[in-house]
């Protein structure tokens, strides 16, 4: 399929450009910071001399463009702050160095990522299953009790902020019924059972909220799809109702759902931030919020860029998947 290959290459090229533009924009914005990170690092009795030293060490004495180029270079080749014995090494995919935490940003992100991913991926699987089954069911039972229940459920999910539902869940299942742990994260490698047990409430909460949008989307798409002429054709050919729905109806609904799902996965960080706060889990969101509190620019920039890259990457994947799923893409 040379058509598709070209399409992917074009999109890949555009993606790299967008990432570059975005990182430059983020860099320019955040280095207009009014507070001086070097002053924070310098400590309480801060002599001008020491301040200058700190600035030099943190490479804040260079121009923004120089800093940006150093940052870009750091991603591919790593970078070193300072010289000699005091030098701080930041290895190859270096997305900056957090002086307050004395760790490379990449390490910080990699440390926190499992928490965020655990929350997001578990929830995503749940909400996809829940949303699509309920949405399809509601569409097929349009106007019936099942449809009303599903639509009502979706409405409540849409209208409830995730953090509110999270707190409610903690109150009911954690405190009143004492069924599940209310906070904390246990690494998967330590104990898969505890891992899942601690995550079950956040998963359900996030899944309920997100499934709402999927129920509405799936239901609307399915209703539209089942009204199309080619569905009647399938019936006229002698396809049974189950086959009509599964092979002909769902096939058309697949494209928009996969699109939204990809974009939602790309934006998983946003949803996870709120969940992490509610359930006191130390994920990327928590990393970002505490970095904002400590004026830790390197971490803020790193996390922002990382999440932006996730979104852009998701867009790319969605476009490609779209091209594979919909034979009409790329021909028009």
């Amino acid at each position, binding site marked *: 399929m040379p058509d598709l290959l070209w399409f992917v290459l074009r999109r890949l090229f555009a993606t790299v450009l967008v990432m570059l533009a975005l990182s430059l924009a983020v860099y320019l914005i955040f280095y207009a910071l009014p507070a001086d990170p070097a002053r924070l690092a310098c400590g309480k009795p801060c002599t001008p001399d020491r301040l200058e030293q700190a600035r030099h060490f943190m490479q804040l004495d260079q121009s923004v463009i120089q800093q940006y180029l150093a940052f870009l270079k750091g991603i591919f080749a790593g970078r070193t702050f300072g010289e000699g014995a005091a030098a701080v090494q930041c290895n190859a995919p270096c997305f900056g160095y957090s002086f307050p935490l004395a760790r490379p940003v990449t390490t910080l992100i990699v440390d926190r990522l499992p928490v965020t991913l655990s929350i997001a991926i578990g929830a995503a699987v749940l909400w996809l299953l829940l949303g699509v089954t309920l949405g399809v069911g509601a569409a097929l039972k349009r106007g019936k009790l099942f449809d009303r229940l599903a639509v009502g459920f979706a409405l409540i999910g849409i209208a409830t902020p995730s953090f509110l539902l999270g707190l409610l869940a903690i109150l009911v299942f954690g405190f009143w019924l004492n069924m599940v742990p209310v906070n904390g994260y246990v690494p998967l490698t330590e104990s898969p059972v505890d891992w899942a047990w601690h995550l079950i409430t956040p998963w359900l909460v996030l899944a309920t909220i997100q499934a709402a949008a999927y129920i509405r989307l799936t239901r609307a798409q399915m209703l539209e799809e089942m009204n199309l002429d080619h569905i009647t054709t399938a019936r006229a050919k002698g396809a049974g109702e189950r086959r009509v729905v599964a092979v002909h109806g769902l096939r*058309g609904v697949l494209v928009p759902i996969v699109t939204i799902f990809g974009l939602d996965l790309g934006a998983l960080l946003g949803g996870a931030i709120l969940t992490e706060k509610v359930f006191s889990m130390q994920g990327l969101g928590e990393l970002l919020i505490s970095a904002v509190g400590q004026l830790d620019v390197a971490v803020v920039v790193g996390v922002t860029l990382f999440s932006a890259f996730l979104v852009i990457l998701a867009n790319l994947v969605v476009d490609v998947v779209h091209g594979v799923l919909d034979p009409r893409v790329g021909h028009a």
Partner: protein
Amino acid sequence: MPDQTANNQGATHYNGSPRPVLEVADLHVTFKTEGGLVPAVSGIDFSVAPGKTLAIVGESGSGKSVSSAAVMGLLPPNAEVTGEVLLDGRELIGLSSEELRRIRGNDIALVFQDALSALNPYYSVGWQVAEAYRLHHDVSKKEALKRAVRMLDLVGIPSAEQRAKAYPHEFSGGMRQRVVIAMALVNDPKVLIADEPTTALDVTVQAQIMRLLEDVQAEFGTALVLISHDLGVVAEVADDVLVMYAGRAAERGSVKDLFHRAAHPYSLGLLGAMPRVDLPPRPRLATIPGSPPSPGSITTGCPFQPRCAYAHLVGERCITERPELTPRPGEGYHEAACHLGRRPEVML
């Protein structure tokens, strides 16, 4: 005896044709909607024999598509269907959905007006034709595809083997309609219902598609129910004609009866003028002043009365009494539902 019942119910076959394969008698279709009951079809009869063509004509909304969907059992759940639909003497109304499924696409197939929307955009045309075959034959996918390619070839798709892999949007309108016809014919159905199969196409392609339908009909002996707005096409290919108005039969008979001896003012209106033997009929449905009544709005009298130019010649009866189909002079079963006893043009 199904045969006898059919004859008594008026599902008569015309022209002394062979025994009809599809007989429809006293078909009623009522939709239950929020706005109340909508009687879309109120008692029509028709039949068609192998190798023969029945044309159904009538203005938009007269119930042509609803009738054909009722025959196929394809109406939405809010439709109530009564009457008789006999396929080879077997009653279809009231069959279980599984029994109906086995008949659909196998014994009776449908060709739609708009081939682009009738085909699934996500599957190759070969797959879609093969699917129609696999639904009724226990064969491997490969065999089904082979059969599909043969069918595509038969309906005149050039290099069918390769084109079978292409998707509907990669075809021209005429080629797409050929694909749809191939899909309908892949199981060698006894009855083919074509609902305005050429309306979406341009004129030269229309003629090609009609010729294709005629060819396959001749080759397979398929009974064809042709729903059309194109009186030129009807005059050329039909054996019998049913004229529908507001969910009822206004007139029916052989194609000659209709074009040369039309007895219903509505049929005359459709033909646009007095039928003249020496002139070819007008190709398109002529427009008749006024618009058809919405289903169910006329409860007594003749549904065509508000638009009828001859009503004054009859008087009260047109308003108070519904005209039934009554025999008219002609080749066989020429009937019209009009109080006007004689041929209308004589009166003017």
